[in-house]
């Protein structure tokens, strides 16, 4: 199936309905504070078992894009980020809405979203195929070094604390270890529990860490739903071509930032919107307007967070390395459907790759139309009493964890990892490295052991082969850089105090 065929495939009514339903559900959960797109993807994943692999990935992509975009509504009207990546939109969307221009704020955000989405689609289509051609020649040593680089990169770039990022990544790797060792067939790390003989499935772990802990956190904040909000209206929702021209450079720059941040593992939409917002402020002629309802700010934040959607798919499709949470779940979906993400996906299943690309663009167009026409309806969703939504979503968490293997044990795993996710987040440890560690550990071990078997037990090829050496050098630099940065910061702080 070529890319053109993939568009035709999605135009078939039954497939189009899946796309439409996915975008709608994504926007709906994006709008509802407390239910995130990641959570929706994790919950829906077990049920995609009953779909063809192409339809499953189309549904998940549509939900992902709808979810990233839906956060705009709640951020603008209620000053609550419906999705974490909408946090920067709150700063200016809400003041503009409060000043009597909610339609204009939503329109600008929506315009930024579609431009960011389309630019990131262009990057995906142009960059992914040549990268996959290069990636296909990588051997086990290069793949192992690549995973190491991705883990160090995500720990150092996901912000704040490098040590905590590394700890979370290594912990995620350990969680992936129990069960039957694929290479030797030996049972390991079951701690005497036969329920662990099959290992800890990544899906209950992900549902626990992201869905359950988020719901429990939101229960704590249930009083938030009664605070003041702005009523949505349609005035100014469609912005003019002149507006596109005025904000064109900002949209392009923020989209490129978003695509680049999306490609880097673990950085994701939230950091991309922060970087794009800060860049727009630094380059603005009216930086004093930022935080008070600046049009440039809304456009920058929304262009960047939507642009990450295409960027994150590039390493997933070409190298089999997820760029963030949603991609980790997409990776899980591909694996569930017996598809191996990475360069071989291009060779063995080009139809799936093209379906992902086509769905990415079409989902953005559908999202734009829905968000333009139905914004008032979506705004009403944000006002639904969470007391009526949360219990049902929690039941879905339980069914989602149970359904994959029909095992009660998996539901307990979800509960335990709900508590662990809560604890990690409370300790301000970044969760993205945890998920990447969890997903990539089996791949890292498999590649290392395969390399060692072919080299007769020596690790030397890791530094003798130029590409793997290159990856290791980047990993080493990314390891040293945050430590040097922290040391320099402390030295400066010490100098300032003295």
């Amino acid at each position, binding site marked *: 199936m070529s890319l053109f065929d993939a568009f035709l495939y999605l135009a078939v009514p039954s497939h189009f309905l899946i796309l439409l339903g996915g975008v709608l559900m994504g926007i709906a959960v994006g709008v509802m504070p407390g239910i995130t797109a990641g959570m929706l993807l994790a919950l829906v994943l077990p049920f995609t078992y009953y779909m063809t692999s192409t339809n499953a990935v189309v549904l998940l992509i549509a939900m992902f894009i709808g979810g990233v975009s839906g956060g705009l509504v709640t951020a603008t009207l209620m000053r609550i980020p419906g999705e974490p990546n909408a946090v920067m939109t709150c700063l200016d969307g809400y003041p503009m809405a409060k000043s009597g221009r909610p339609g204009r704020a939503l329109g600008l955000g929506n315009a930024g979203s579609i431009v960011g989405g389309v630019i990131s689609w262009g990057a995906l289509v142009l960059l992914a195929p040549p990268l996959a051609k290069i990636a296909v020649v990588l051997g086990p040593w290069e793949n192992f070094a690549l995973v190491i680089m991705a883990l160090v990169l995500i720990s150092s770039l996901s912000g704040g604390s490098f040590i905590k990022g590394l700890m979370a990544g290594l912990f995620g790797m350990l969680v992936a270890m129990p069960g039957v060792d694929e290479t030797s067939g030996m049972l390991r790390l079951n701690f005497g529990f036969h329920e662990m003989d099959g290992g800890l499935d990544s899906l209950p772990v992900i549902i626990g860490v992201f869905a359950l802990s988020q719901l429990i956190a939101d229960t704590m904040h249930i009083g938030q739903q009664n605070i003041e909000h702005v009523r949505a209206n349609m005035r100014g929702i469609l912005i003019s071509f002149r507006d596109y021209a005025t904000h064109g450079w900002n949209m392009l720059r923020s989209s490129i930032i978003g695509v680049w941040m999306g490609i880097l593992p673990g950085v994701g939409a939230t950091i991309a919107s*922060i970087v794009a917002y800060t860049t727009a402020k630094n380059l603005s002629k009216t930086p004093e307007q930022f935080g008070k309802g600046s049009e440039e700010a809304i456009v920058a934040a929304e262009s960047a967070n939507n642009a990450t959607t295409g960027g994150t798919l590039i390493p997933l499709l070409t190298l089999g390395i997820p760029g963030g949470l949603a991609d980790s779940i997409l990776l899980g979906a591909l694996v569930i459907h017996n598809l191996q993400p990475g360069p071989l996906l291009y060779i063995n299943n080009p139809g799936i790759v093209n379906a992902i690309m086509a769905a990415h663009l079409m989902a953005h167009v559908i999202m734009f139309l829905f968000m333009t026409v139905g914004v008032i309806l979506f705004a009403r969703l944000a006002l639904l009493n969470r007391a009526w939504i949360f219990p049902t979503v929690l*039941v879905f968490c339980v069914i989602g964890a149970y359904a994959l293997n029909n095992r009660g044990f998996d539901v307990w795993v979800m509960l335990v990892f709900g508590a662990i996710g809560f604890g990690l987040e409370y300790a301000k440890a970044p969760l993205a490295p945890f998920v990447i560690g969890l997903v990539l550990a089996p791949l890292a071990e498999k590649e290392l052991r395969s390399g060692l078997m072919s080299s007769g037990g020596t690790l030397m090829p890791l530094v003798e082969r130029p590409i793997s050496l290159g990856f290791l050098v980047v990993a080493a630099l990314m390891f040293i850089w945050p430590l040097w940065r922290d040391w320099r910061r402390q030295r400066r702080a010490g100098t300032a105090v003295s």
Partner: protein
Amino acid sequence: MMGGGDVNQQQRRERRADLGLALAMIVVSAAVWWEASKLGPAPFDPLGPKSFPIWIAGALGLLSLVSVIMILCGRLLGRSDTSLILGIGEEAPTDYTLRPGLALAAAALTAVYVAALTLTGAGFLWTTIAYIGVLGWALSDRTKRHTLIAATIAVIGGSAITYLFTKIFILDLP
């Protein structure tokens, strides 16, 4: 704006959380190391099933140990700039009241629900109706009207979910 006392309190809280995290990671890495060291070598495989977990556990243990030393020397480990789970560990909001007790009760009730489903033969339909009803009521304003709404949603929601998964998705529910 935070005063000096608030800043100290915040730092103390962060230090306690950092220490808790590092100690928990030491326990996890020690447990994995101990369990993995019991494994034997595998034929034809230079690495075997135990080496990789031991390396990872070793790295995690070492990193956690360094973290404990840093914390005891008065340094903080830093904090993640962005959150994937909103609302945990944030400063108390000013426009509404945080309800950690309610969150704890919701978590406990969910554990009871899971126990009832997996450890007893209570049946999915009735357990789910009871769970949705009780949790919905607890999270609501608990007025008469809300009690009625919670009960209605529980019956309709529980029945609909059971129908959806048993008749349409043909799942064997717990």
